[in-house]
């Protein structure tokens, strides 16, 4: 990297109130050792007089405001090194305000609908309250969250219902706190629609503060839901497992059908486009709908699965 004299950044530009359509503009700035993505953006403004909208405050991984997508990967601009060739775009899954700035108010609303303030089981006993590092470790991990929204930007299940990983981390902060007595599992299930999570690990991979978002936050909440027998949090997983056992392979069509039920109809326009483009074969669609995809030696798999099941019980 130090050999490169220039950094070339191709940047997403769009002001929805005055532009007809988004566009990309390419800028070159001189490179210096250890330069961050944020330094590149700053230089474009200060050296080249280009007005570019991006949000940042602290530059040192505290404010969580500078999330952008660089070459298809969500990053904190203050944290990641500049690359010689960069495509810089706003975080996906969020409404674009202008250029690289995305709306955060939706996150606030979803977070607050989960009521993520500590609700003590017992009245506060005065400082210092009895508490150990071991007891607090799971919640303390969640306290590393800077609400940068990188996780949610990568979440395939994030939509109208599912609160998304960033908001659920805020809920987990209380749910995993030994001092807390709030109805966290019920909230995660009913308000956060945690069952929509497909456990793809994108959130964990995106997190710049190394929170195990899926394993510790989301699964932490799921464990409480299971323990309190509140609902089926593993719907997607069960469908997946049942398909595997029954057919030996997972047909995406059948998976969608089983997982989404009648709501799969909302995917129909998308399916038609895929068929027209040749990405989805009609035969495959019909086979999937009729559940006809089967692996040849599926019986063998069935034996293994049963053995595993017996082993578990």
């Amino acid at each position, binding site marked *: 990297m130090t050999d490169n004299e220039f950094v070339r950044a191709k940047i997403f530009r769009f*002001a*929805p*109130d*005055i*532009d007809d359509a988004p566009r990309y503009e390419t800028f070159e700035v001189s490179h*210096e*050792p*250890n*330069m*961050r993505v*944020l*330094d590149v953006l*700053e230089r474009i*403004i*200060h050296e080249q*007089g*280009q*007005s*570019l*909208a991006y*949000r*940042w*405050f*602290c*530059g*040192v*991984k*505290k*404010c*969580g*405001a500078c999330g952008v997508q660089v070459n298809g990967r969500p990053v904190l*601009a203050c*944290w990641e090194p500049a690359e010689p060739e960069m495509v810089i775009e706003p975080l996906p899954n969020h409404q674009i305000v*202008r*250029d690289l*700035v995305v709306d955060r108010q939706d996150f*606030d609303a979803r*977070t*607050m609908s989960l009521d*993520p*303030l*500590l609700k003590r089981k017992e009245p*506060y006993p*005065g*400082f*210092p309250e*009895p*508490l*150990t*590092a*071991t007891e*607090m470790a799971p919640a*303390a991990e969640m*306290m*590393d969250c*800077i*609400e940068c929204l990188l996780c949610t930007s990568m979440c395939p299940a994030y939509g109208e219902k599912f609160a998304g990983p960033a908001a659920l981390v805020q809920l987990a902060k*209380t749910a995993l*706190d030994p*001092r807390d007595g709030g109805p966290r599992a019920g909230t995660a299930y009913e308000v956060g629609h945690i069952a929509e999570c497909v456990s793809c690990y994108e959130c964990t991979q995106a997190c710049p503060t190394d929170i195990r978002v899926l394993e510790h936050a989301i699964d932490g909440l799921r464990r409480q839901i299971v323990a309190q027998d509140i609902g089926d949090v593993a719907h997607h997983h069960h469908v997946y497992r049942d398909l595997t056992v029954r057919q030996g392979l997972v047909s995406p069509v059948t998976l969608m059908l089983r997982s989404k039920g009648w709501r799969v109809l909302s995917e129909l326009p998308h399916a038609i486009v895929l068929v027209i483009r040749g990405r989805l074969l009609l035969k495959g669609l019909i086979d999937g709908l009729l559940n006809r995809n089967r692996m040849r030696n599926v019986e063998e798999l069935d034996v293994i699965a049963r053995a595993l099941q017996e082993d578990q019980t």
Partner: protein
Amino acid sequence: MVQHVRADVLVIGGGGAGARAALEAHDLGLDVLLVVKGLLGKSGCSIFAGSLDFFSSESDEQNEEAIHKTMEFLGKYTHYLGDQEYLLKSTHFHHEEFWAWLEKLGLYILRDERGAIVTDIPHKTQAWAPKMGMSGATLMNALRKEVLHRKIRLLEETSVTALLQKDGRVVGAVALDFLHGEIYVIQAKAVVLATGHSNHLSKRSTGTREGAANGWVLAYNAGAQLQNIEMQWYHVSDVRKPDAWMRLHLYPNPLPGTQDRAQLFNSNGEMFFDGNMYPENPVPYITQLKHLLRQVQEGKARFDGGYFTSYRHVDPEIMDKWLHQTQFFHKLGLDPARDLFENGITWHMNVGGVRANGDTMETDVPGLYAAGSVAALITGGLPNVVYDGMIVARHINEHVRSQPWLEPDSVQAEAEVKRLTDLFTTEPVNGRLPAQVKGQIRDVMWEHMGFLKSEQGMQQGLASLQRIREESLADMRLGTISRRYNADWVDAVDVQDMLDACELIIRFSLFRKESRGGFYREDYPVTDNVNWLQHVIGSRENGELKLSTKPVELLYVKPAHEIADYFEVDY
């Protein structure tokens, strides 16, 4: 385009003081509007409070002794320019209420496996919530949620550009919402300035992106007195490069679970500072600065580099477990057990600010209050700023609730709306962006108004600022007329405020003819407690700055020497 709103209390600023004032006022039943230039709890100064001064007292007697020690410490911390009556009250709050308040909010004060609070050893001067470097950010995260939970009216990414008055009383403000491109005319019975430190005025500073000394200028223009704004406080051990990381502070404070502190090395590889050279002082910032000045004078360091922080002597487990900073070493491929991090100084806190009454947070202008680091009572500190927020809300609740609604002067409001509207232009097309002019101002301040000052340098600084006023303001233009997140627009307002604030700082600095704390003049290198243990006070009279002095009331602690060698005293 212009929205009119009304609130009992307008709180300006979304750090610890503003958030606490808004929460307290709301809980007392007042109708609050909170206006934040960045995002509540994510911008501003409070997120930079990485460590918390800790006290553990088991008896009232011990507490009294600890409070006395704290007062001794705060005397030095404020270079004896703090308001001692206020210091005693905020210290009582800090010792007796602050920690319980934090825990009640759900914060986790770092414990060990057995449940004991982790502090430095053996002096027990610091604690963390829950990580060194992140205490303020964690607190602000919690306060943001408290404000949202109560549905307190909140305008974010909105900058207050002028205070509105009626017969001398502050009765509202004009604000620019640059997220949505809207202008607000706000009417309020009380206005609380909680805009924090005014440090983002120089090229290297710890101020967050939006900082521009608006609070000082708003108060000054409304007729309030400013006090000791020449007393800039520096960070010595902040990271030099990359630029984005200049706000990364490598603490000289004792580290969790040990007596060890960061050490400083000069360009010859010689250690010139270790916090433990001053074992009684857990936050030896000023002494660190004095030692660096010696190194610079001897050509062994520069203010913008050529010296280094070392954690090589610290147990790597402590570094990895408890420090926000450690990951930054690793990110650059550095190993704290082996490698050094190059440093440069930054403008950090202000000792001075808007002159305020420490019992009520009132300024000299009726209806206008100053809480937190924007006020001149003390050099910041999370416990103090949240104390201020609490006090100001209680005072307003008792004394301002019954105040009748006064209409702001319509001529003044219209003129301010017109000023903002006039700035909203992309002409001249080849002009400079406001952000570029801000950069010019910061360069001037770095060059002529650094830690090492002289009459001549400061006069050059004034002349350079005047040139920017004459040349750059005329061809300043916005980059876009989009009304969505138009940071250029608010930057254009900031340019005016920054020019005003920087000129004020230089004039205050020319007035103080001594050296004290973070304030060093080559031409007056002595700490002069005979003639200059004085507040420098400035206010606007007939459009001109009028400067005067006022003796400091030394009620509880005082310096040991009358006139002292700057390098010989530890404050």
